[in-house]
């Protein structure tokens, strides 16, 4: 009796709720809430252990996402130009390809520089790059890639104005459903909110505060910057939590405070020091 019932629950999700009701109704009141379908239990166990998440190797993102990009969900990272959005997407791709997973970048903005991607640590052999010209094609391409079994699909919509507007909400819902059906991680980078209710998680990146080195006779050099990433939406969690994403340029020397080559949360005093250097420069530029 138990084996056929178990099989029904696992293989026939549309009948699972009816079977569950049947089992629960036969149990005492106190035990009913402890019975769950095998599919949901499996998901809960994996989520609790962090197995379902795709580690991003960006500490700020991993903290906000409880260990990494959740599989089977659409995660939207919103950020205007110079928000660190593209850097974060490349970091996620680098983390995924470094563990041997294949990943796909649907690049509507056509903004990928293979040299920069290589510098960010992306294994280009494991990266499929699709360069659609319209949002409609980008959505279709992302859906094909999810159906093709890619464990990570990153869809970047480029700079505003996005070619093709915000897209149809139904298309975003279909994309989210495809991610869920294939248990893939789907990360959408956009300059403004586009996916509506389809997104399971929404992160918003603020503008990068640039850090310059030099001055006082020596040439100015862009050393990097930092931006604030805020959790706008997360199913089952309170929003409003934020983290700082710190980024450095490839040519800039690493600050002594961060010896490990990875994004670090800057201490508060370090963040406060930067604007002083920036504020000092305009006088020099204006004076020529």
């Amino acid at each position, binding site marked *: 009796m138990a084996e056929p019932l178990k099989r029904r629950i696992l293989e026939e999700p549309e009948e699972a709720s009816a079977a569950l009701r049947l089992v629960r109704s036969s149990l005492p009141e106190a035990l009913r809430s402890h019975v769950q379908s095998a599919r949901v239990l499996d998901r809960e166990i994996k989520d609790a252990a962090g197995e379902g998440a795709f580690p991003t190797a960006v500490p700020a993102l991993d903290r906000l996402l409880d260990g990494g990009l959740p599989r089977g969900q659409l995660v939207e990272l919103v950020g205007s130009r110079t928000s660190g959005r593209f850097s974060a997407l490349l970091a996620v791709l680098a983390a995924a390809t470094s563990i041997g997973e294949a990943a796909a970048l649907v690049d509507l903005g056509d903004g990928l520089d293979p040299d920069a991607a290589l510098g960010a640590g992306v294994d280009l052999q494991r990266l499929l790059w699709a360069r659609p010209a319209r949002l409609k094609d980008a959505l279709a391409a992302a859906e094909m*890639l999810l159906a093709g079994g890619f464990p990570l699909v990153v869809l970047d919509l480029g700079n505003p104005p996005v070619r093709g507007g915000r897209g149809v909400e139904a298309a975003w819902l279909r994309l989210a459903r495809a991610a869920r059906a294939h248990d893939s991680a789907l990360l959408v980078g956009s300059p403004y909110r586009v996916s509506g209710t389809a997104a399971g998680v929404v992160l918003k990146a603020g503008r990068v505060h640039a850090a310059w080195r030099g001055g006082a006779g020596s040439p100015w050099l862009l050393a990097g910057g930092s931006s604030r990433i805020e959790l706008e939406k997360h199913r089952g969690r309170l929003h409003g939590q934020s983290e700082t994403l710190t980024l450095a340029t490839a040519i800039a020397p690493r600050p002594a405070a961060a010896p490990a080559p*990875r994004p670090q949360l800057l201490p508060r005093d370090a963040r406060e020091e930067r604007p002083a250097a920036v504020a000092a420069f305009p006088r020099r530029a204006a004076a020529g």
Partner: protein
Amino acid sequence: MARIACLLLPLFPLAARLRSEPELMHEALVVVEGNGNAARVVAATRLARNASVRPGLTLTQARALCPKLVARPRDGECERAAQEALLEVAEAFSPRVEDAGEGTAYLDVDGIERHYPGSSPERDLGRALMSAADAASLPARVGIASSKLASRVAAGLPEPPVVVPAGEEAAFLAPLPLQRLAPEVDVAETLERWGVKSVGDFARLPPSRVASRLGKLGRELHATARGVDARPLMPREPPPVFQEGMTLEWPLVSLEPFLFVGRAALDRLCLRLESRGFACIRLGLDLRLEPDGHQSRSIDLPAPTRDVKTLLTLVRLDLEASPPGAPVAGFSFLAYPDRPREAQLTMYGPAALSPDKLATTLARLFALLGPERVGSPRPVNGHRPERFALVDFTPPPPPEVRREPRAGRGLLAVRVLRPPVEIEVMTAGSEGAEMPVEIRSPASEEAAKRTSVEGQVKVASGPWGIEEDWWADDPTGRDYWDVELAGRGLYRIYRERATGAWYADGIYD
């Protein structure tokens, strides 16, 4: 003694037609040869034969006997594809297969019966051959003997498969009329004068006397009558391409009906590829156009696939992009085979992409975006940041053991602007040491559609010069700046040394 199996398709023109149009299976169908009043029935289905329609009747006579008769002309394309499919069924059992044409194939089955450890191994082998042919929509019969003629005669008998025990071929053939040996006319006349009526009568004559009176032809015919093949089995060389197609009853002028009939042909083609363990790496399409035109086209696939939906989408896009320009009277698909990609599954590492699914996905992306927009990116030697190369996406196998992700480098990446955005830059400072102080977008319609780059320069860092191709006719010389615009972000801009024009080619993002 060699054992030979004969795979025979009775009523071959009809069987080939029904393979292409299976929906006619339950109709009173005849296949005719010739045009107009000269059209004669070549083969008829059981329903038509029940209405007394026989081969040799004119189509008018046949229609008079059976008013609901469906007639189809003999189609060389269908018959060639059916013959090829029959040979492929045979090749799935034995590497030595002879193409005897007209729905007949001989295969060397010596020793294969050992795979069928039943009470009658050869009979089981015959049944397996018939099932395999049936799965390929070919209602074939099987006869097994030690000679080609005996196996062919056995295949034509009721209740197949019929097995003639080794050494009993002469006795098996003896009662048959002499015509079954299909002798030359003069030899047949001579034998008739001698009073030889059956194969057995002929086989009983002394071989040396027959040879001295009838020459080489007579000697070979006599050997055949005794169950000895005059010529051994001649194995064929498998063709390099798989082909499926048909001649259309009416020329087609629109795409949808063509894709409808094309899908059925692609279905059969992919089934054949699958039965041989192949996938299609290039799909050719030959179109016969009205009145007497011909057009060939070819679609290269990014990876071997046998997904019918994908192939059909590619055909649709190709035909939409360049229509044939005349009604299509017949077509034929050519699949260039290749081994499908294989993936080694891993127990502890990340799962590899399924090669079949990947091939299908890539083909569909090619169809959607174009081959120049899909691939694996690679850097190109040189200094110009907008350049890149795309190569085929063939990811290496994943590691055997799952490993921890490498810590990110936390680099501030540049989002490249392709093509660069033209800008107007105000500079200040002495000549040779100018610094950008303000950026404006040119007032053009083109600029309004692109990402706008404008504002007061807060910080500028540069110039960083690059030179490339100084030896060529079109050298590149640029001076780069990193600029921070007040409240608008960080950009990478450059000035062309040759023209003095300014462009923004990247955003730090």
